[in-house]
């Protein structure tokens, strides 16, 4: 444990006006500069934003996780082994016996059952990840059962690809919380939600010491963690301005900067004082073409837009380090993702397609985009590219949530938006980019396909069928085909995939960013 005194020793004798003396943060404390104002809750059964998922990933463990070495394989975290019954409906997990919560109590199947039931009963934003296996508030107590302290049995409603269930359980919402602690802090029927928003009760390497909104998250090591945790404290500091993040990194006031922009990263590349870690994130940027707009509904127009854009120039000049060209609905790194980018800037082809659609002189259209960077710069480049083939784009910029609100109400024409996968199975994106069973304005299932009012029955049905495919290889092949068909028909102009970049001082070791934010772990970070 870190005591007040031990911290003070590290920082005594600081002259008042010279902060150079305190140029480095104490060795055992890791300070990460990050925009953390996306956190709404740190309750793992509620957290659904990037930073929240990352913090929960460090405080909690799940039954299974994607293998960091090969994410298309599943690895046990709390579960030692598991088996699927021949009927494909019943899954039995055998828990490891040495896992302990921060309180010192062992992690039992009762805790795991409680956590998954809790996700269903709370019914917060990520609950659907668990619910899609047929669990409801009323039946979940009988469907997720701890048969003994170390055996958990899940009964799902219909046969699915087993990996689909495993990847869903590996999402943040599948984190195991300590039942006794959570329930001791429950108020009314909130299942401890109010308390767990700002506290932790998990078996991960860290426990949450404090979260101050828009200020900091402080993590202390879990004294009962299975492997020794290197840092004595990890502090996530909210630094909104990337320029300020870079300054503080250069001064050694923070050890790792998480939100530097492309040009800032370029300026530290090759500087021996810094190291960079990066990973392709499952976060893609695309233009949604609303099919309610008569011109955009023409198949040739959709393809014309795809052929008008100079993907390479945008990537190379505006987002050289932070985004990569990516043109399929499955992010790179995902199981079944194909790395094929058929589209490039071909104005002649785009013009020909427009002429074929009866629009040789182009047309006028609006493009909604977030006013932040790099979206604003990209939107301007898109505007110039599309103007070259006769499509006159008026830019409508707004706060990013404003743009999202608009696309959710299907009021956009073209919109530059981004999408992060919910869990590490291809179905996450396959579903949202393809399935649209009810295209009416008051439909219940509002996928991205619905938001753009696009209904392609063939792709929609195939996406729904493929999630049930139990033959892993067949499933992959079908997803690959779907991605190609999607490129040829969809109203989604997929542009870029985010690369998460973190820049750290050269003394920092053992930190890597992971494709899913919940897998970015702090336990091995150290400073020399």
């Amino acid at each position: 444990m870190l005591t007040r005194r031990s911290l003070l020793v590290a920082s005594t004798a600081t002259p008042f006006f010279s902060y150079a003396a305190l140029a480095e943060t104490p060795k055992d404390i890791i300070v990460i500069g990050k925009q953390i104002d996306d956190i709404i809750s740190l309750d793992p059964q509620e957290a659904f934003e990037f930073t929240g998922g990352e913090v929960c990933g460090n405080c909690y463990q799940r039954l299974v996780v994607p293998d960091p070495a090969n994410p298309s394989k599943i690895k046990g975290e709390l579960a030692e082994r598991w088996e699927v019954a021949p009927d494909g409906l019943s899954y039995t997990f055998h828990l490891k016996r040495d896992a302990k919560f921060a309180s010192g109590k062992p992690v039992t199947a009762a805790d795991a059952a409680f956590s998954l039931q809790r996700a269903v009963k709370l019914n917060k934003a990520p609950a659907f990840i668990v619910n899609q296996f047929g669990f409801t508030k009323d039946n979940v107590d009988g469907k997720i059962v701890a048969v003994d302290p170390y055996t958990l049995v899940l009964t799902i409603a219909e046969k699915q690809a087993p990996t689909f269930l495993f990847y869903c359980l590996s999402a943040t919402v599948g984190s195991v919380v300590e039942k006794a602690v959570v329930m001791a802090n429950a108020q009314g029927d909130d299942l401890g939600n109010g308390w767990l928003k700002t506290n932790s009760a998990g078996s991960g390497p860290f426990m949450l010491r404090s979260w101050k909104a828009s200020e900091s998250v402080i993590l202390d090591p879990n004294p009962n963690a299975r492997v020794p945790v290197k840092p004595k404290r990890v502090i996530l500091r909210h630094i909104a301005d990337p320029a300020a993040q870079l300054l503080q990194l250069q001064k050694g006031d923070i050890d790792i900067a998480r939100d530097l922009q492309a040009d800032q990263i370029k300026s530290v590349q090759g500087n021996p004082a810094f190291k960079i870690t990066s990973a392709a994130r499952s976060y893609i940027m695309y233009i949604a073409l609303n099919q309610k707009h008569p011109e955009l509904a023409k198949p040739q127009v959709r393809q014309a837009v795809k052929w008008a854009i100079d993907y390479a120039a945008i990537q190379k000049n505006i987002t050289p380090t932070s985004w990569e060209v990516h043109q399929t609905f499955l992010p790179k790194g995902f199981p079944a993702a194909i790395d094929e980018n058929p589209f490039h800037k071909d104005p002649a082809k785009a013009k020909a397609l427009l002429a074929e659609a009866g629009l040789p002189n182009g047309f006028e259209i609006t493009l909604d985009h977030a006013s932040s960077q790099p979206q604003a710069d990209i939107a301007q480049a898109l505007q110039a590219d599309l103007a070259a083939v006769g499509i006159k784009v008026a830019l409508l910029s707004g706060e990013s949530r404003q743009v999202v609100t608009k696309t959710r109400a299907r009021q956009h024409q073209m919109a530059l938006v981004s999408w992060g996968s919910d869990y590490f199975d291809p179905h996450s994106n396959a579903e949202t980019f393809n399935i649209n069973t009810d295209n009416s304005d008051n439909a219940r299932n509002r996928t991205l396909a619905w938001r753009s009012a696009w209904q392609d029955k063939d792709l929609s049905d195939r996406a729904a069928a493929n999630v049930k495919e139990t033959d892993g290889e067949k499933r992959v092949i079908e997803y690959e085909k779907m991605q190609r068909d999607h490129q040829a028909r969809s109203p989604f102009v997929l542009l870029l995939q985010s690369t998460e970049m973190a820049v750290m001082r050269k003394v920092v070791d053992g930190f890597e960013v992971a494709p899913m934010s919940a897998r970015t772990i702090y336990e091995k970070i150290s400073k020399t």
Partner: protein
Amino acid sequence: MSKRKRLGTLAATAASVPITLFGLVLVTFLIGRVMPIDPVLAIVGDRAPMDVVEQTRLELGLDRPLPVQFVIYVGKLLQGDLGRSVMTSHTVGADIRHFFPATLELATVAILIAALIGIPLGVLAAVKQGTRTDHIIRVLCLAGHSLPIFVLALLSLLVFYATLGWAPGPGRQDVVFDDMVPAVTNLLTVDALLAGDWEVFRDAVAHLLQPAGVLAYFSMAYIARMTRAFMLDSLSGEYVITARAKGLSAARVIWKHAFGNISVRLITVLALTYAGLLEGAVVTETVFSWPGLGLYLTVSLLNADMNAVLGATLVVGLTYLALNLFADAAYRLMDPRVK
């Protein structure tokens, strides 16, 4: 005007405060309604399915008609309940107790610096009216008010933090001191003193000086300009001329007679500038990662977290009105010229 009558006018002004506050709530409420951002989005995120969205909308009471929502809000407000912020998961009251002191601390130090430098400069400019000194002071002060404050803040960080190393970086305190003194007032400097912890106090003051200095420089122009104007007026007053004729020393005439005469008017100016600083620190707070009310208000607004926006706006409005009232009172009751 008799003293009683002056008090009466003051009471009338004070009585108008609740009406103004009511108007403030109403306008804020309407703004929240016309914002094209779905408040539910901030809570459940972009990917939540419809039933969660609808459930949340119900929990927030957003399904009711706007007038009903308004009446419910005002009813709760009268009982002192500001509701809960969705961004921080705390009650808005608790959030304000946490964020407002940070802004208060920043603005107070800023106004002190601005007054301590701006007033003497203004007096000097008045005494040396029309000379080169006057011009230099004028340009120097106006320069601070001629750049966007985020540029001033970034420049200051570049110079005093990155290059010279005289000042600590952004933030309210160094990470090692986080959570080290019990939060009593949430004014970090005061809390540190209460706990008798000089390390924390020194660190807190060091972190305060830079953002406060930037804010102070930004508002100095107005203070110096008004001081100069008041002083010129005062220096040409009859009794100052009399005092001069009596052969009193120049310093004595300036500071005792002329300056004494304008001090009440200066207090008014300072009070209004202070009110401006309390509301105007948004940008400075963003650059310096200062967890103050301005930052809270901006983030809440852009997430359509209306309880938070309403609560914070009320606090800022109330402070503004209180300071205004104070300035008014000082002017009416203490200024020798109001007869």
